[in-house]
């Protein structure tokens, strides 16, 4: 029993990170119908900004109540760095191509993605990774058969808090409403007096803050970060967004958790079949197998609507 509970917690942990990153994919897709493949690198830059703050504060030597403060500062720095880089990417790589055929910004996105990951890996780090200082107390909590670390509790709870914050923002603020209007119909939104460019930049910034936040959580949880770290979680989060229905915000969250659980619990369930023994690396095979299956059988995802023709 305890084994399966552990798998469940692991699935929800990775799922939280996928969900946070997937939100940026789905929101940008909503306003621009663009798959922002550089989003994984926005996540990576946020992770490094948080890393910088934690190292500057003394790294693994930070202890006691200072831990909370340092992590808070790391999250703020990550959000700011990710937001700044996403704004720059939108301005330099996407906006000039706003009216170009759809393939052009997609290629531009892939170009930015490769450029940034290699810039960090080869330009600054000589291909070496960095160890995220483990500032979080390694203690665990036991609830019945379930063993869960403080870090996992923090990771899951803070992700949910961020998502609730996002949901409030999109539903109730002026900027949130302008984003919803622009994602439904850019031209009609402009006739309402909405500054479309401003709404698009706001979308990139909000998605980037979520990704930067996820970057710090990823570093704390997986300990090693590098310039290419954004690639796999980025593609997985994209899979999660497609699974949930690209363009749908609840879809990205549900898709993220589903993917996290499929990778962990799903793999172990397959291992229950006699003769099957899939090592941990198979989680990627399962994730992308799932992507192919969704694209074939339900390309609109769980919450996806049929993409409506623009008026």
């Amino acid at each position, binding site marked *: 029993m305890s084994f399966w509970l552990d798998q469940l917690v692991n699935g929800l942990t990775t799922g939280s990170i996928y969900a946070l990153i997937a939100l940026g994919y789905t929101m940008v897709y909503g306003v621009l119908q663009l798959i922002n493949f550089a989003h994984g690198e926005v996540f990576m830059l946020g992770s490094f900004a948080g890393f910088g703050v934690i190292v500057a504060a003394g790294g693994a030597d930070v202890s006691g109540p200072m831990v909370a403060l340092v992590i808070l500062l790391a999250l703020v720095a990550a959000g700011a760095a990710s937001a700044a880089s996403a704004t720059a990417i939108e301005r330099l790589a996407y906006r000039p191509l706003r009216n170009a055929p759809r393939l052009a910004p997609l290629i531009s996105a892939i170009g930015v993605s490769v450029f940034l990951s290699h810039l960090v890996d080869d330009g600054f780090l000589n291909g070496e990774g960095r160890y995220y200082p483990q500032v979080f107390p390694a203690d665990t909590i036991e609830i019945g058969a379930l063993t869960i670390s403080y870090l996992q509790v923090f990771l899951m709870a803070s992700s949910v808090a961020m998502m609730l914050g996002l949901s409030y923002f999109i539903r109730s603020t*002026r900027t949130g*409403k*302008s984003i*919803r*209007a622009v994602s*439904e*119909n850019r*031209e*009609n*939104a*402009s*006739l*309402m*007096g*909405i*500054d*479309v460019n401003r709404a698009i930049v706001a979308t990139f910034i909000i998605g980037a803050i979520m990704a930067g936040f996820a970057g710090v959580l990823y570093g704390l949880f997986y300990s090693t970060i590098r310039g290419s770290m954004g690639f796999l979680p980025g593609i997985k989060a994209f899979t999660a967004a497609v699974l949930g229905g690209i363009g749908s915000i609840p879809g990205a969250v549900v898709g993220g958790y589903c993917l996290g659980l499929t990778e962990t619990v799903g793999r172990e369930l397959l291992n229950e079949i006699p003769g099957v023994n899939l090592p941990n690396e198979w989680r990627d095979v399962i994730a992308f197998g799932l992507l192919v299956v969704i694209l074939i059988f339900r390309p609109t995802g769980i919450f996806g609507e049929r993409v*409506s023709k623009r*008026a």
Partner: protein
Amino acid sequence: MALLSISGLVAGYGGITAVKGIDLAVEQGEIVTLIGSNGAGKSTTLRAISGLVRPRRGAISFSGQPITSLLPHKIVALGISQVPEGRGIFHRLTVRENLDMGAFQRRDREVGADMERVFALFPRLKERAGQTGGTLSGGEQQMLAIGRAMMARPKLLLLDEPSMGLSPILVETIFETVTNIRAQGTTILLVEQNAAMALEVADRGYVIESGVISLHGTGAELARDDSVRKAYLGEA
């Protein structure tokens, strides 16, 4: 000085020039209609005024201020609202949120009161305030589109084919509303294929054919004109 004045406007999309040099003026307090057949350049003219299409040549000014190259949201800020062709309702937003969108640039405290005024004008919208726009019928969507445009308190309201796809009774209602809106002080530029109704409510009208103005005059004059009767009022 005219509230809206257009001179030598040339506009189109890609390789198509839909509007080929038109002059048009709308005075404060008027209802002016632009009639013409499908593809004559009516919608393109409205879209150029709203900033959705960048004019290739010519000038558009509003209250004496040039607006030719402004972005749409800046034009809304000056006091021009458009009810687009096909109504442009946000299907995923509720009726109330759609009306809120119309007041996007307003920060005064009378937005709520204006919404009540829209509800008084169209009680059906009040009944459906919490429903999403996509669940409304065509007529209700048209009411919502007009109400939403009024939420911006425009000086000039642009209406693109408000009668399209509606039953004769609903068309009557919509045109009555148009007259009421003018009575409350809003100037109106109305684009229509339904020339009979449009000329009935309009002070003046322009006939556009293949991107050029072929005739203009008062609503009554145009309604009596032989060529108009033949081409647009379905008489032999």
